[in-house]
């Protein structure tokens, strides 16, 4: 196959990189193909909140010039893998001279005065950032419906959510608008949308990626990570953004291994790495309310790993059921402190209503959406005089117990394997009026954040025609081990029929009669804008 004659948006990153180096594809054509597709389909999908066409094409031209020079000098091999590869940033990654709203009206019109660490790294690697993706406001949500800019649809079923909060990134990758995207994960916001959109998403160990320049939600839980359409693509993106950064004191001085070097192209070789691996199956993760089709797909995936030589060990994480309450105290408490900075004085929305106090009340009352208000209220309450010990300190103590569960499990197993989400993508509007039902979307992912561990979601088939995610959870800093497991799972299921399917509703994205995502939510009788 000649990469230039085929549709370049369907290629894997390694194939794009090879085509660029061979000269069968230019970075400009690659960028233009992705930008064109994203523009054409975004009315119906609403995965994007900002397109940076001019800058992206200029960056691609610069890539083409550097590739030309490298070809003349014989130094093509020295170019970074992501050179010329289109990437999306979640709309909470601050970049100089560009807007970042974090999905919030309170940051409408905000323009960055500096680049986030990861944006600098991507620029240095020659990646071509083509825009910023939709998200739940301040990353608070599991459906991307809590965006001030309207909901994003799921490419597999446009009347369903893509998951969240990084749903714009997961939908854009699933719809081939970009091969790679950055997300953030505070309680599942990379892994859950990856699962619901049928792509790969990794939440790295807390401290693996610098959060400098990322709009903060819950600072002891937030972590940045990659989306890709396969494990090797996602690993290539983590490689570029991982590592110590002096500007974020919580970014850890831990060496970053060469992830791709340990991920063989050969399926046989990848599958053979499963032999003798001990994988724990935490019984508490098959939670109440889990859809039978999801459980079936996950258990089939576990069976495939076992057939290929992995040893499946039944394990217990006894405090799993306390994860939800623990998380929904700690995360809102930290959020209420982080979001105190939006005061209408220095940047963002400013509503004048009399004195300074009246300005704060009016700016924040008008600027924040319903979910953000709920969480700021919860967090303020949990930290307020008389309740601090009962809620916040109690939750921090239970956090110790939850982390202890994982520590004990990892004494006897190499990694854990579990569902990512208890359900497939749910219909737009279905959980908007019931916050607790929405919060339960993350029951299988948020304990991992509470414990600071890495988690990888890979597609493991379909239930009722919608993607199901398989989650691998690892020891701290063992992203490499998770990638190897994810790659091995891809290898043992390489010939599965579902792997060849593209998202069902992609053709509808090109149909001008398809309603926009916001219209579909309205038809569902709900609006994300009110409380």
């Amino acid at each position, binding site marked *: 196959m000649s990469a230039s004659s085929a549709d370049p948006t369907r290629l894997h990153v390694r194939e794009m990189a090879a085509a660029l180096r061979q000269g069968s594809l230019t970075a400009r054509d690659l960028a233009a193909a992705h930008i064109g597709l994203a523009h054409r389909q975004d009315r119906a999908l609403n995965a994007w909140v900002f397109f940076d066409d001019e800058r992206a094409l200029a960056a691609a031209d610069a890539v083409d010039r550097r590739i030309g020079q490298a070809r003349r000098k014989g130094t093509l091999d020295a170019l970074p893998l992501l050179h010329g590869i289109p990437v999306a940033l979640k709309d909470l990654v601050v970049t100089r001279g560009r807007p970042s709203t974090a999905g919030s009206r309170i940051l409408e*019109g*905000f*323009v960055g*005065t500096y680049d986030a660490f990861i944006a600098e790294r991507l620029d240095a690697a020659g990646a071509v950032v083509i825009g910023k993706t939709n998200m739940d406001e301040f990353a608070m949500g599991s459906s991307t419906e809590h965006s001030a800019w309207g909901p994003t649809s799921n490419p597999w079923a446009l009347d369903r959510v893509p998951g969240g909060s990084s749903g714009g990134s997961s939908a854009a990758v699933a719809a081939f608008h970009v091969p790679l995207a950055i997300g953030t994960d505070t309680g599942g916001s990379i892994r859950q949308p990856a699962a619901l959109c049928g792509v790969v998403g990794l939440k790295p*160990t807390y*401290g693996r990626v610098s959060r400098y320049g990322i709009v903060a939600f819950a600072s*002891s839980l937030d972590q940045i990570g990659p989306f890709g359409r396969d494990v090797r693509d996602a690993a290539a993106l983590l490689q570029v953004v991982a590592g110590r950064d002096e500007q974020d*004191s*919580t970014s*850890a001085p831990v060496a970053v291994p060469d992830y791709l070097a340990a991920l063989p192209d050969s399926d046989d070789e990848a599958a053979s790495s499963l032999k003798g691996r001990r994988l724990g199956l935490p019984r508490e993760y098959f939670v109440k309310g889990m859809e039978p089709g999801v459980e079936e797909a996950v258990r089939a995936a576990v069976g495939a790993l076992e057939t290929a030589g992995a040893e499946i060990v039944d394990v217990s994480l006894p*405090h799993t*059921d*306390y994860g*939800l*309450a623990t998380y929904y*105290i700690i995360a809102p408490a930290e959020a*209420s402190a982080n979001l*105190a900075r939006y*005061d*209408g*004085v*220095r940047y*963002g929305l*400013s509503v*004048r*209503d009399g*004195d*300074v*106090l009246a*300005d*704060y*009340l*009016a700016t*924040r*009352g*008008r600027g*924040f959406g319903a979910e953000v*208000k*709920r969480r*700021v*209220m*919860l967090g*303020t*309450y949990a930290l307020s005089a008389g309740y601090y010990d009962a*809620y916040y*300190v*109690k*939750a921090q*103590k*239970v956090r*110790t*117990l939850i*982390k202890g569960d994982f520590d004990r499990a990892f004494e006897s197993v190499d990694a854990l394997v579990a569902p990512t989400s208890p359900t497939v993508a749910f219909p737009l509007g279905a959980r908007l009026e019931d*916050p*607790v039902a929405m919060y339960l979307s993350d029951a299988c992912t948020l304990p991992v954040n509470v*414990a*600071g*561990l890495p988690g990888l979601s890979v597609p493991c088939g379909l239930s009722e025609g919608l993607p199901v995610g398989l989650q691998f959870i690892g020891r*701290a800093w063992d992203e490499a081990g998770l990638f190897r497991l994810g790659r091995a799972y891809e290898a043992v299921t390489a010939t599965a029929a579902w792997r060849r399917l593209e998202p069902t509703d992609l053709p509808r994205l090109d149909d001008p009669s398809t309603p926009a995502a916001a219209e579909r939510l309205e038809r569902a009788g709900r609006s994300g804008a009110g*409380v």
Partner: protein
Amino acid sequence: MATLSRADVEHVAHLARLGLTGEELERLEGQLNHILDQYRVLAELDTEAIPPTAQTIELENILREDVPGPSLTVDEALSGAPERAGDHFVVPAVLDAGDGAA
């Protein structure tokens, strides 16, 4: 653990500097109490002897050299200001000038 009254919700909204409508306050009263109900499970656990965890990666005192370096210019720092006067952000007066004006 407590139940939030409407007055409690108003108090917390004030602490959080959120200007909420009557309708928002009413809905939040129900929703917050429903969420607080979910927190009750934590009371089942005896955590008397358990130390709290604030962060998970056991790092301490990460220091860097205190070296002056380039920072934002005044214009950059003020570039997002809703209102600017010279090199300053503008806010409503917070001190009484003594002439009756706020």
